[in-house]
């Protein structure tokens, strides 16, 4: 009798385990520092420590699992409702730990390494991301989706982004080159070189970055250098999403080709300066602006 009961129990246990096993399956993914991060079970509570990471986690279909974000995590709008754990350069570790995340998405160069090391010492898995290419964006979405067990949505979004960028690349592969200055900031004047993600977008659209060959990722050229380079178009972000002040500043130099042909274009910075799926929309805008610059060549007969 006892044997039968224990056998029953055993069968029951085995059944239970076999049911439970897939739910607690280990998930693994390699992060942007080439470390493999493994979770005993897919993440249920995610802390995203940069505005870009927040967007990518939402894009991967795991938005509902985000329990902590940092300041300026303003997209998608739902992210504004999530608890903040300080700014990305100075995290409130107490609040972060209290939210009991089971996965922390860190920013390789943006978060203080001391604080992320502390989190790892406390036993929280940290997955570092920092996409530096278009493929890096879609890859990050897919890898986040694996960790959050939302692969279907992640693959869909990543695929859309990949296809959209590929379509742009195909469309503008033969386009006539346009010499462009992209302004990241005005005082000091900042631009990007060819290695920067924005530089890659410029190239995709058939643009030639006048400062593309400079060694630093975010060079600070002088105003003279811009005048000497005489770009055919100037693209700028700006403080806020609609501020054209930076472009108006260039209008005082009518001898600039970009000014003479009115090729001063505003692109909302949030669409182009974050490595997220919105970059596709930003890239489309970039390409349209450059196309307009090409059209104006013919109109002016030069």
């Amino acid at each position, binding site marked *: 009798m006892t044997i039968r009961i224990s056998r029953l129990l055993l069968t029951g246990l085995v059944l239970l385990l076999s049911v439970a096993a897939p739910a607690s399956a280990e998930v693994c993914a390699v992060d942007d520092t080439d470390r493999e991060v493994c979770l005993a079970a897919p993440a249920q509570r995610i802390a995203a420590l940069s505005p870009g990471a927040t967007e990518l986690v939402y894009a991967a279909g795991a938005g509902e699992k985000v329990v902590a974000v940092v300041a300026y995590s303003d997209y998608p709008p739902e992210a504004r409702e999530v608890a903040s754990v300080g700014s990305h350069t100075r995290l409130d570790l107490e*609040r972060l730990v209290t939210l009991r995340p089971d996965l922390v998405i860190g920013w390789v160069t943006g978060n203080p390494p001391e604080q992320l090391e*502390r989190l790892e010492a406390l036993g929280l898995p940290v997955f570092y991301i920092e996409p530096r290419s278009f493929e890096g964006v879609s890859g990050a979405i897919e890898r986040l989706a694996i960790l959050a067990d939302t692969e279907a949505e992640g693959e869909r979004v990543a695929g859309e982004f990949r296809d959209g960028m590929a379509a742009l690349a195909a469309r503008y592969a033969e386009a006539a080159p346009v010499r462009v200055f992209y302004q990241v900031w005005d005082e000091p004047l900042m631009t990007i070189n060819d290695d920067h993600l924005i530089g890659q977008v410029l190239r995709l659209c058939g643009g030639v970055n006048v400062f593309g060959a400079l060694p*630093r990722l975010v060079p600070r050229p002088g105003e003279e250098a811009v005048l000497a380079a005489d770009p055919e178009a100037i693209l700028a972000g700006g403080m806020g999403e609609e501020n054209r002040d930076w472009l108006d500043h260039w209008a005082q130099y009518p001898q600039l080709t970009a000014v003479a042909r009115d090729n001063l274009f505003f692109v909302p910075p949030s669409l182009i300066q974050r490595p997220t799926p919105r970059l596709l929309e930003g890239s489309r805008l970039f390409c349209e602006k450059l196309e307009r610059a090409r059209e104006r060549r013919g109109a002016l007969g030069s």
Partner: protein
Amino acid sequence: MTALIRPLGALALSALAALVLSVALGSVTLPPDKILAALGGQGEALSRTLILELRLPRSLAAFAVGGLLAVAGALMQVLLRNPLADPYVLGLSGGASVGALMAMLAGLGSVLVSGSAFVGALVSTLLVFGLAHGRGGWTPARLLLTGVVVAAGWGAVITLMLAVSPADRLPGMLYWLMGDLSYAGTPWPPLVLLAIVCLLAVPLGRNLNVLARGAMQAAALGVSVRRLEWGLYLAASALTAMAVTTAGSIGFVGLVVPHMLRLLLGNDQRLILPACALAGGTLLLLADTLARIMIAPEQLPVGVITALLGVPTFLYLLYRSQ
């Protein structure tokens, strides 16, 4: 002896109160029973992590750094016989900052950043030490001038490094320069150093008292002035180097706390040095607690708060003094 014990006792009590406050307050509110349980190693894992892994080490580090800076400031003021002297006046924090920023530019981890800050502080100390010797005689004025010029040199190097560094590393570098306890690791090395200095202060205090009145008088009274001055310089440098390595260059504490205590307690180094350790530690501990909770979850740089707390207090004491 009671003249020593009473003020020190009062300062020790206020330090203890500040410590309790800083462990009890945080951006996350914990009920007292949970805090007590966590301190005893009991209770739920989360509150244990919050108290034992995050708050307590940071509080102890804040206390130790504040104490070290105040004692170093007091020693520098005796050494240079100049009321404007602070731990950084001889260029030590500049050297440490250059070391730390170089490590950050190279993308090294936090341990190496601290190590390189320490090396930078040592290099600066030895540089000033060597140059101030010069060819002729040695005077505090010469040491001060050498140190101030070396500090200006470091300042230029720091500005240059900030100007050419990649934009993504700038925030980290600026925060390091402002001084911040959220990067502090284990609090034990600065605490142990602080304790050692306080123990040494009592037997050496008499000689320091004599020195504070002037080198000639001290020599006439049989104090080996030169050896004492170099000892002071090296001790103050070691304290500052440890403080800067732990928490970056936090300003103000080292300049004002010794003056505040002199206004309150008189200028007996046997009393002032341990009092500086306690009061400096208390000030930084309170400031760091406020920095953590004032606009939580955002965190303020602690140097802002030390100045905001210290400036009115100091001005009031100065105004009231005769």
